[in-house]
C-alpha cells in the first residue's frame, strides 16, 4: 500500500516538475494552500526581525442539554496557543506551536519543525509535524473558523489536531491559475488505545495521547501520511490525503505476539468560494482498521463521516469603533458513523452515530478576531441503534490571533 502510494507521488511530482514552478513564499495571496496554513498566520505578515512570536486563544460559554436534562452553564477556555518562528538562514526556517488546552490540563508541542527549502518542489521538513490528513487538521486555528466547535469528523475520526514526530517532503508547483501541492511524511504512529479506551469505541483521538509517542513508534514501524491538493485561484482547493500505519505492539523482544494490525485513513477535503462572499468548506474521512476478531464489536473496524460548512458574509463595514468589521451567517451540517458495520449476532446495523446541525453568526471586528454565536442541535444514536438522544447547545465564543 505504502509503495503504491509512493509510486503515485513520484509520478505526480515529476509531472509537476514539468509544470511551471515558482518559489514558495512569493505567491499572490489567493494561491496559499491549506498545507501552508502554518506559515500563513498574521503574526508572520508584519514580522521585521528573523524571530517572530504570536499565537491565538479560544474561549467560549456553553449552555447545553440532552433530552431535557440541562447540563448547566459553563465558561470554557479551550486553548491558548503560542507560535514562535525564526528564519534561521535564507532557506532554513523554524516554526513551533505550543498549545495549552483547557487551561493547563493538557500542554502539547503541537508543531516544532525545521524546513530546509531546497527547491519549490522538494522541501525537507523534520521535527514534530502536523500529519497532513484532511484540511482541518492542517488549518485548525480557531480564528480561521466561524464555528465555536471543531468539526466532529476532524476531532473524532482524525484525532485533530494530529501531529507526530517525523520527517518528510513537501512542495508546490503552478500552472497559470492552478497550483498543486503535496506533502509526504513518515512519523510515529498510534497505539492500542485506538481500540482500548474508555470511550468504548474505536477512536484515533484516544490512540494519539500516548506520552511516549515522541520517543518511539509504538508498533516499531513508521506511519505514512501523504496528501495531494490542487487549487484553482479564486475558485477553490481540493485535497486528497491518506494515512496508513500499524497501531499495535506486534512483537516483543523480537518475538511475534500478534499480527501486524493496520489502520488506514482516507480523507477528501474541499473549500470553494461560490461567490465573493459565500464560502463552502467540507471534508469527509474514512477510517478502517484491523480489530482482533476475538475482541468486542463495541470497537468498530470502520468509521466514516464528514461535514459541510456554508459561510455567507452579509455585512462589511463599520460597527461601533471598528472600521472594517464583517458579519457572516454560518451553517454547518455534519454526520459521523463511529462504528460502521453489522452485528454478528443479528445482522442488524450497528449504531453509534451522530448527526449534527449548527447555525450561527460570526462577527469579525477586525480580521484576526472573531466572535461567534452558535446553536448546535445533535441527534445521537447509541451502539444498539435505540431511539436517539437529542442534544442541543448554545455557544458563544471568541477566538483571536495575537
Amino acid at each position, binding site marked *: 500500500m505504502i509503495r503504491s502510494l509512493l509510486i503515485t507521488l513520484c509520478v505526480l511530482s515529476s509531472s509537476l516538475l514539468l509544470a511551471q514552478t515558482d518559489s514558495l513564499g512569493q505567491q499572490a495571496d489567493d494561491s496559499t494552500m491549506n498545507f501552508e496554513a502554518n506559515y500563513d498566520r498574521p503574526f508572520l505578515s508584519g514580522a521585521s526581525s528573523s524571530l517572530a512570536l504570536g499565537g491565538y486563544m479560544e474561549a467560549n460559554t456553553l449552555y447545553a442539554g440532552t433530552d431535557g436534562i440541562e447540563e448547566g452553564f459553563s465558561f470554557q477556555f479551550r486553548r491558548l496557543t503560542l507560535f514562535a518562528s525564526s528564519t534561521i538562514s535564507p532557506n532554513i526556517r523554524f516554526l513551533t506551536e505550543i498549545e495549552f488546552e483547557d487551561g493547563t490540563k493538557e500542554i502539547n508541542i503541537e508543531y516544532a519543525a525545521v524546513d530546509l527549502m531546497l527547491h519549490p518542489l522538494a522541501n525537507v521538513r523534520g521535527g514534530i509535524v502536523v500529519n497532513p490528513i484532511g484540511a482541518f487538521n492542517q488549518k485548525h486555528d480557531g480564528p480561521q473558523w466561524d464555528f465555536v466547535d471543531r468539526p466532529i469528523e476532524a476531532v473524532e475520526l482524525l484525532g485533530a489536531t494530529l501531529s507526530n514526530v517525523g520527517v518528510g517532503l513537501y512542495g508546490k508547483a503552478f500552472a497559470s491559475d492552478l497550483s498543486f501541492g503535496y506533502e509526504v511524511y513518515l512519523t510515529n504512529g498510534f497505539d492500542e488505545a485506538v481500540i*482500548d479506551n474508555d470511550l468504548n469505541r474505536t477512536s484515533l483521538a484516544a490512540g494519539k495521547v500516548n506520552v511516549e509517542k515522541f520517543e518511539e513508534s509504538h508498533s516499531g514501524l513508521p506511519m505514512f501520511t501523504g496528501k495531494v491538493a490542487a487549487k484553482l485561484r479564486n475558485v477553490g482547493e481540493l485535497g486528497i490525503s491518506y494515512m496508513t500505519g500499524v497501531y499495535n505492539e506486534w512483537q516483543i523482544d523480537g518475538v511475534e505476539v500478534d499480527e501486524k494490525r493496520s489502520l488506514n485513513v482516507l480523507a477528501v477535503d474541499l473549500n470553494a468560494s461560490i461567490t465573493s462572499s459565500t464560502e463552502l468548506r467540507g471534508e469527509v474521512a474514512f477510517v478502517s482498521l484491523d480489530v482482533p476478531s*476475538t475482541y468486542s464489536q463495541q470497537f468498530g473496524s470502520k468509521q466514516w463521516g464528514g461535514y459541510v460548512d456554508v459561510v455567507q458574509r452579509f455585512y462589511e463595514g463599520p460597527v461601533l469603533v471598528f472600521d472594517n468589521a464583517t458579519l457572516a451567517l454560518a451553517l454547518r451540517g455534519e454526520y459521523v458513523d463511529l462504528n460502521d458495520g453489522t452485528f454478528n449476532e443479528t445482522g442488524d446495523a450497528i449504531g453509534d452515530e451522530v448527526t449534527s446541525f449548527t447555525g450561527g453568526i460570526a462577527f469579525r471586528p477586525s480580521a484576526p478576531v472573531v466572535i461567534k454565536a452558535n446553536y448546535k442541535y445533535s441527534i445521537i444514536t447509541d451502539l444498539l441503534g435505540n431511539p436517539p438522544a437529542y442534544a442541543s447547545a448554545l455557544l458563544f465564543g471568541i477566538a483571536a490571533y495575537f
Partner: protein
Amino acid sequence: MRNFVFYSGLCALALFLGACDAFLPAAIPSEETLDGALEGLDQSQRRMHIEGDAAFNDQLFTAETGLGPCFVASSCGACHAGDGKGHPFTTLTRYSHSDGAGNQFLGAPQLQNRAIPGFAPEALPSGAPHSSFTPPAVTGLGFIELVSDADILAMADPDDADGDGISGVPNWNTIPSFITPVPNAISQNGKYIGRFGKKASTHNLFQQTVTAYNQDMGITSTFLPTNPINYAAGTHPVPSGGPVVTDEDVNAVVFYLQTLKAPLQRSAASVEKGKLLFSQIGCEKCHRETLKTGFSPIAPLSQKEIHPYTDLLLHDMGPELDDGYTEGSATNPEWRTPPLWGLGLSENSQGGRLFLMHDGRAHSLEAAILLHGGEGDKSRSEFKKLSDGDKQALLDFLRSL
C-alpha cells in the same frame, strides 16, 4: 450605520438568549423511560444514586484499568443500556461444570467470549450443556429485593396442592461467604432463597453486582479477588495491582440499583379488558400482579405495595425451554417468572426490536407467550383460544406495562 448594526445584533442575541430554555430538547416523560431515581429520596441518597449511576453507566473498563483479560462487556451499562433489557450482542453464555459422561469443565459456569487484544477468549468446551442469557432490565429491583422470603414461600406450591397445574418453587442455593443474607431470610440446610437471575440463583443485589463485575467484565474486587481464568491460555488469575473496583463503587452501584424507580404503567385506563383477560386465562398465577415490600431504611422502598407481575419462583416451562443447564436447585427446564413491569419499553433498549424470554429467542410478545410450555401450557392454550380482539386487548395490556 455603525451603531445600527451593533444594536440590531444585540437585540437579536437578547431575544435568542431569552428563549434559551426553549432551544433545549424536551424531556422524556418519566413513564416513557426506565431509568431514573425513585421519588422521595433525600439529598444524600440522591447523591449516592448519582455516584452509582456513574459507576454503572459511565465507568468503562479498559485493558489498562483492569478489563479482562477475558470478558463479555466492558461496563454494566453496555449490557443494561438505559437500565433496560439487553441485546443479543451482549447475551452471555453459561455452561455446566460437568456433563452426563463425567467430563469436568474448568472455567464454568460463565463463558468469557471476548478478550482484550493479545489474549485469547474462552471457548465453549465441546459437549458442555449450556444456555444463553439475554440481559434483563434492572429497574425496580430495590423493591423486589425487599419482598420477604416468607411471602415468596407462601406463593410456592411445590406439590400443586391446588391442582391448577402450576407448582412454583424457590431456588434454594448456597450463598458466597461475602454475602449477608437479606433481613428475615429463611434458610434450609444452609441454603438460601435466590431471587435474581433467569434461574433465580442469586440471593441479593450485592451478590449480583460483585459477580457481574467479576464474571461479565473480568473486574476483581475485595470480595472476588481473582479474575476468571481461560484455562486454555493460562491467563493470570490475580491482577498484580490488587482489586480493580473499589468497595465504594460496588456499594454505590448496589445503592443505585436499589433506588431505581419501578417502571410506571402507561395508559392503564384503556387496558382494563386486557388486564382482566390476563388473570382469567391464568397468566397472573405466575406473573403475580401485587407483592409487598418489608421494612427498609430507604423510606420510599419501605412497606410498599408493588406491581411487578412475578412470583419470583421457578416454574418448569417444558421441553421447549429446556436447555439442559442448571443453577442452584433449579432444574433444566425451570425458569424464574420474570417481572413484566417495564415490558412495554423493552424495544427502546434492544435496538428497536424485541428479544424476549431468557435467551431472547422470542421476537414478539405473542411468540413469547407461545413458548410457554410445562406449567405454562394451560394458559398458553387459553391464550390460543382467545378471539383476535381479546388477544389484541391482552397484548395492549402487556405493552402498557
